[in-house]
């Protein structure tokens, strides 16, 4: 083995070792965490511990990590002081179309749509909106309760009674 090959293998092993230890993922994980923090501020739920962004591995979804990461970095770079990141100031400027960075303005609407959709399709979001939620899965329990205790209940969950025979058996 030549010295050059040895150094090459050694470097590869070091990289693999770092990856195994989680060091290789740290930058991406940091980015995703920054995106999530920003998304929580974006929909005004910074008091909630919810993950609104879970990057997918393919197509546009994987590209989003880069775009959203750039927005999150931009906000940290330009709107942070000793107290922290001033998201409200950024969002006020964004709402008034005063953010000049082209990548940020390009992807901001997409990021907002993703954040809102992720949050308001979750039970956490439904609670904030005051929505009673979509049908629950424990249909039989509900059905029996409706038959016995709550005959006047008209929640859509009862719609599911017909579905137990096929779809949910497939699940």
């Amino acid at each position, binding site marked *: 083995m030549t010295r050059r090959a040895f150094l090459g293998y050694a470097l590869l092993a070091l990289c693999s070792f770092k990856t195994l230890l989680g060091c290789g993922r740290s930058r991406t994980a940091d980015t995703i965490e920054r995106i999530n923090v920003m998304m929580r501020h974006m929909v005004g739920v910074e008091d909630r511990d919810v993950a609104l962004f879970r990057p997918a591995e393919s197509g546009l979804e994987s590209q989003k990590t880069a775009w959203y990461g750039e927005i999150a970095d931009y906000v940290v770079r330009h709107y942070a002081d000793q107290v922290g990141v001033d998201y409200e100031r950024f969002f006020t400027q964004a709402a008034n179309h005063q953010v000049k960075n082209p990548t940020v303005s390009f992807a901001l609407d997409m990021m907002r749509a993703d954040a809102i959709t992720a949050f308001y399709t979750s039970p956490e979001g439904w609670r904030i909106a005051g929505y*009673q939620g979509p049908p629950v899965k424990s249909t039989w329990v509900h059905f029996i309760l409706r038959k016995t205790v709550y005959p006047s209940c008209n*929640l*859509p969950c009862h719609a599911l009674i017909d579905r137990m025979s096929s779809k949910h058996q497939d699940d």
Partner: protein
Amino acid sequence: MRDAEYDALIIGSGAGGSVAATRLALAGWKVLVLEQGLRFDPARDYHLDERDWEFKDPFVPHIPDTCNGVPSRPPSGFDHLRSTLESSPSLRAFHYARACGVGGSTLRYQGEAHRFPPYAFSMKSRYGMDVDWPVTYEELAPFYAEMEVRLGVAGESHPLFPRASPYPNPPHPLSPASRRIAVGCSRMGLHLGPNTLAILSRPYRNRRPCVYCKMCCRGCMVGDKSSADVAILPVGEKTGRLHVRPQTVATRIKLNKTGRVSSVLALDTETGQEFLVRADAVILSAGAIETPRLLLHSAQSGFPQGLANRSGLVGKNLMENIYIGLLFLFDEKLETYKGVPIDSRLLDFVKPDPDRGFPRGFVIASMGAPDYLQGPAAFALWIAPGYGRAHRQFVEKHYGAHAMIYGIAEQGPREGNALTLDSEDKDPWGVPKARVDTRLNIEDCTLLELMRRQCSHILEATGGTTLLGQYSAYDISRATHAVGTARMGTHEEDSVVDTFCRCHDIPNLYIMDGSVLPTQGCGCSPSLTIQTLALRAAEKMASCHGV
């Protein structure tokens, strides 16, 4: 599938086709229905129990691209009628809103089961506009009643629509939103009453009543909405003589030497295999766009301008919806995302009244949250403005307080509003697409303005509301009530079919869908009238021809 023979072949399984098929099967006929869409399984295909249900439409992915709208500029001087809640295009093009599947567009309709008022059948002789129908309300009344029983219609009698007996089911209660608006209406001397709906208000014929999930447009999972696949076709299929073949498209109608339909060329859209179906009678029930498209495409010797088109009226007189809706917020949350979709309607303006300055009627209705803004995510995404805490507070405060009041009117039949075959563009099966050229005129815009003004007055009288914006047919076409492209009439020179939906030109070819309607019923929804005409025509077929 090998070539097959039937007593009747029906193309399309929607409002008209399902009724005709079932009636003929009950009379002993062997019937085949070709349906280009899927047979949807509510258990498998509808999404109410899924987390992102509000962004999943089971029907849209399965609607084939068969229709091109021709862009045109709406009449100038009416910019205040533009939609403000969506980006408003400068040019307007026909958009055909429908569903394809066993049950047709009844799969996604909101269950409105309206009779047309008696005067709607004689607009020409009473008001000097449009055309008269070759049938009267009195002739249709018993068939209306029979359809209402089959569908389990829930409603409240109204003097505008004379009837011999009450509706089979009591009306649905008004939603809290509609109750508020009804108070405003009563201050103006108007009456907002319960809508007439093919949605069960109580258990009926082994079917469950509505649970008020408001999901009619995304497919009813309970089975309380009387779509054709739930309330009509199973009755016919139970006879063993009615066979529905989904995912099969009819591509051409063939005549024999005597000028009768001999067969229909069909194509299995899954396998791509073509086959011929022979039948003694053929009924077209594919809707006001697809039916004339097939007739025009089937031009052949004796009919160079398209089948059954010696009048030259196939594809002409297309009427779409003239609607305008105001979206607003109540000052309190009223759970507007629940209930039947369009729970109330106001009929005070449905009768044409020349004294109003414009002699054409319209209906006003209240619908709580519209279907595309029903869930919290859609509301937060499209209605709640901005970012951050302000956004969240808006959702917290106003979701469930949003509602819409809208007006819907008929569009007069005009030969210029027409579809032809698009010689440069074909559908996935090689048939030329429909090229639909419909334009609004000053009359349509005046109607829009009139309806907008009345809706605004009602909101003012209701009080405690904040206007968010409007949707309008002025710039955005969403034709759910397209009718008129093969109108019925007494004389073959000015109509395509006779009073029993039989083509004047071809004795064993029938049309039973919205195409045959000469006018649009003053803003009432057309599905019940389509079904009623189909029932009456199928009874005539059964009694004349036997098996």
